[in-house]
């Protein structure tokens, strides 16, 4: 049901692209899903059921990124992607919010192992497959630096 967005666009006229963050297995008609989809008259319950079924294999309540393409004829397709890197980093470091003053305040630190594990998870994302593990790691380290999370070799 969720085909690649490229040939989807080629087939039908696209009305809008909606990006959401929805907890896995817990989509409900309430916000964020409700207003975003309801605005375009899309079938909320069908999306909820479909999304919940597809995210059963993930740990419950992890915030998954979803990109929906709404077509002019009120149909839609969506792709489920892994949570954001920032979220992974926060979880690995055990913190709630990133540093308010990154570069000056260091909130937490992680080892290269953590970065490697996150990069491996991200590689299974359909949109990151083309990136080498090294490039992914560099990108993750960059994000960590901007959040005030230090990356050390060993803790």
């Amino acid at each position: 049901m969720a085909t690649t967005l490229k040939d989807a666009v080629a087939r039908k006229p696209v009305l809008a692209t909606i990006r959401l963050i929805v907890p896995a297995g817990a989509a409900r008609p309430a916000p964020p899903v409700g207003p975003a989809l309801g605005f375009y008259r899309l079938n909320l319950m069908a999306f909820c059921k479909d999304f919940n079924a597809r995210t059963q294999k993930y740990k419950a309540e992890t915030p998954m990124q979803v990109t929906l393409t709404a077509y002019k004829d009120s149909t839609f397709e969506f792709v489920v992607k892994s949570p954001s890197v920032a979220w992974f980093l926060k979880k690995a470091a055990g913190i709630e919010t990133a540093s308010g003053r990154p570069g000056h305040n260091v909130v937490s630190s992680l080892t290269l192992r953590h970065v490697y594990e996150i990069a491996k998870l991200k590689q299974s994302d359909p949109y990151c497959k083309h990136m080498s593990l090294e490039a992914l790691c560099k990108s993750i380290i960059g994000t960590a630096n901007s959040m005030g999370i230090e990356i050390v070799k060993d803790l």
Partner: protein
Amino acid sequence: MLPLVRPGRAAAPLRRLCRRILLLSSSPQTPSPSSSSSPYSTKISPLLLLLSPRPSPASGGAWRWRGVSSCAVRAVDVGGEAASTSSDLSSPYLSVRIRCRKEDAEVLSEGLLCFGATSVTVDDIAAAGNLDEITITSIYAHGEDVDSSVSNAASSAGLEYKPVYETSVGKQCDWVTVVQETYESTKVINGLWVIPKWRTPPDPQAINIIINPGLAFGTGEHPTTKLCLLLLRETVKGGERLLDYGTGTGVLGIAALKVSCLVLLVYYYLQMGAALSTGIDIDPQAVTSACENMMLNGIDSNKMLLYLVPTNAQAACFPNIDKSEENKPTGGLELKSSKGSYDIVAANILLNPLLELVEDIIGYAKPGGIVAVSGILTEQVPKVEEAYSRYLENISVSEIDGWACLQGSRKA
């Protein structure tokens, strides 16, 4: 992949300030590492906030200046205080329309999601065609600091300008009702239709199940509902007892009572539905909806029972049909005592609950009774089969559109 996140400013002091209502004056900015702060004030109308880019004298990294106090956004506050984390249906939400350049839209929306937006919608890029700018609509939970979020997103996206945006409060309405107008009558198979309450059945001769969905699942459009309905049509011969595990709108329970294999007896057709349907669900909305649908289809309360079960599936449920104030817990005992007596058990839920509740679901069926589970994707079938093959024999799988339904009969 996320763009490299370039940092914004500390929002905490600003946020505290913003909690005072209707402040129009400036707020002293926390000093940025490179520039000194200087307060200024703007007159702002409650709903419109225009920000002009104010580049700060920066040294080293590119620090963005967050121009104006975000108190205007607070002025829109409908009396709420701290950021509400509940997904309450009636709580208002903030809808922010942002204008930015076309090529920046993609990166900016990623940034917005990163910094607190719950959803970001981009109106079709192709349609915007000749315009240089496009509009992004973003939704925030009530009480979020929109201004800092937008500026953080803008700086992380690498925009040199601060996008102009306006905020409005959206009143939460029942979105499902709004979408419901688009529901159509669905034909499951020849002679069996599921009709939304407000439509007329296209084929009055067929068996028509009338549904008012509400917030429960089961309008008949979804492949899994169709799979289950087809299964019921084949297996209900008359006089069975059915348990609808996870009843939603009650569509399966009602269908079982109405539908059956047609039996040709001498010169006339004899239609016999199931004798008794029982529906259980953990969601009170579902039980209410099922109750209503029962009435809509003119089903006697002694032919269909509905129970609300707590999530840990213990027997403390109430019969929902009599709507009396005193809900006696005797219903729970009834449900418990009926274990092992159902001819057909249908469970159209999701993979994880199905795997966890194997014993519970099987427990309700009598030996030799039919158990049907659905709500699973084709790729999830092996897992389900593995879990259920301990208790079921003659397992068969039917599929529509990538969704599957697994049925078998309980081992003696």
